[in-house]
């Protein structure tokens, strides 16, 4: 294919006006709001509805609020929630999860689980620092998810 190069005008060929135009943009940014953050030292504040790591809430007695209804696992489009239910050891409750695992590698953080939950048990927090070194660590177990809250407070988001 033949490439047609547009003919450059005199101003284009002088080059200096384009240089000034570029420098103008650069200098303009000196006087604008800064976007760069000193990330590890300075944490980013997520938007209020940001969807980060999940947490499992507790009821007023400190027990897991989840009733193991599997609604989140049913709604989950990436099928990353695995629950095993059993009869609850408490008198006022009937069903509770003995196992509650979220594979955060598979999770797409869509928040459908949160929406499906009838008990407001699973919620997505603002935690976005989830890096780890083993695959197993990304499978968040029940106790990890119940502890997300403390973790959240600790990190002072």
């Amino acid at each position: 294919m033949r490439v047609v190069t547009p003919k450059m005008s005199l101003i284009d060929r002088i080059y200096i006006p384009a240089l000034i135009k570029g420098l103008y943009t650069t200098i303009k940014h000196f006087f604008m709001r800064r976007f760069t953050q000193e990330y590890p030292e300075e944490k980013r504040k997520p938007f209020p509805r940001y969807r980060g790591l999940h947490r499992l809430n507790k009821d007023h007695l400190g027990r897991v609020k989840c009733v193991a209804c599997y609604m989140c696992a049913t709604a989950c489009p990436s099928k990353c929630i695995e629950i095993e239910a059993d009869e609850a050891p408490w008198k006022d409750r009937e069903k509770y999860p003995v196992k509650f695992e979220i594979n955060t590698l598979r999770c797409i953080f869509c928040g459908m689980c949160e929406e499906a939950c009838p008990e407001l048990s699973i919620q997505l927090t603002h935690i976005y620092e989830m890096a780890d070194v083993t695959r197993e660590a990304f499978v968040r177990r029940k106790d990890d998810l119940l502890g997300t809250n403390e973790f959240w407070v600790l990190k002072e988001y």
Partner: protein
Amino acid sequence: MANIKIDGNELQVPDGITILEAADIAGIEIPHFCYHKELSIRGSCRMCLVEVEKTPKLVPACSTTIKDGMNIFTSSEKVIKNRKGVLEFFLINHPLDCPICDQAGECTLQDYVYKYGSAVSRFTEEKEHFERKKEIGPHVLHYSERCVLCGRCIRFCEEISGTHELARFNRGIRCEVDVFPGKKLDNKLSGNIVNLCPVGAMVSKEFLFKSRVWWLTHTESICPLCSRGCNIEIDSRDNRILRVRPRPNPEVNSQWMCDDGRFGWSFVHREDRLTSPLEREGEELVPINWAQAISLVKERLSFIISNFGREAVAAIASPYLSNEDNYLLRVLLHSVIRSPSMAVYQAAQMEEQIVFPSGFTIEADKSPNLVGAQDVMTVDGKKPISHGKLLKKVASGEVRALYILGGVPRISLPVDEREMLRKVDFLVVHNYAPSELTEWAEVVLPNLTFAEREGTFTNFQGRVQRLKPALLPPGEAKADWEILQEVCQAMGGEMSYPSVEKVFEEIAGAIQGYKSLSYKDLGTQGKVKG
């Protein structure tokens, strides 16, 4: 015949049927709770009320018989308003605990409220509470709060099982279904009440909280625990059976199955299931691979044939395995080795036959395929002998090598017969788990249970019914027909069956009575052999 009109569709229906049945013929759904095809009509739920022209009030569709010239409206304004009202009443004291209710997903009340009900309730008072969970029997839990008092369970105990354990207690808002004081819902059909209940009031103790029903894989199969061959549906998830439910078949089991079959499948998930072929080394059985196992069987059988003659090799077919599996054993013995010593295992535990008032019967013979095993082992009109007779030949030293198909879920051989097995020079056993058959076996080949197997069973009526595999086989275990095919080929037989269907085609060609059958035509309900 009567000419009627339902929702504007004119149709001819037989005399004497009810509006509900006529609507079923017309393909129109009329919601109902208390009506059940196999039970008497009670008309207590008021859910099926429909409008009939020239009738001042709505009439219950389940108990009103068809008259010639009737003009029925099943979705007129009046009917829809009634349904909405009835459902609102049902929900007044219903706990609405669908998220933790096992019935959710297959609950009629849930479906109807979605379809015909209202999303809001006008009831603001405290709901009536009952004792939440009651253990009314060994397999059934009762949640009174969820009950819609349709009475299906009570009628079932009166009409089908004839055991009269359940009744309504109290009146009005305190009315609930319960067992009579001191009684337990422990008849042999009690599991059916769980399926019968349109809501989650009766739930299975075994299945409680195991899984949500929409995740189950349904596989049509046949119950392997008696010769009636009830049609069942295996509900599994993650390669494990979670429950077994009956499948309607008017010729065999109507809509029911017994608790022995419903809860008797645990042997499928035995911890000690065999996963690879085993060879005897002294006292112990050590795992070997399939190629080694097949060549070992070939070597030993050929040795015995060349030293003691063909008649020294004998085989015992199993009434617990499918027709196809047993047929391949016949091929091995009759066509490849050419030995006439074939028997069918018959000591299958016999229990008393149980007949219920409805006609539902639990058969005495606990093997699912005795008729089929005898059919396929019949050569030139000569029926196979019983395994007892064959074992006598073993005792006399006439038989040196024995090929036994196992697969028996619970029984054992009597001690004297077990001792006879010790006298055999070479004993090959197909079994799914260690048993008294494998105690003396030289080679044990792992086979499958009914849940993993494909094939056909012939029940006591001669009805040939299909099993479909619900689970994947454990480890290296294989279907018996596949194993036997490999043994046949190793012994010099020239046959190859790529699928169960091909084996069945050959059975249809070779066995008396199976000639009119084809594997595909058996369908879900089976076919009676000729």
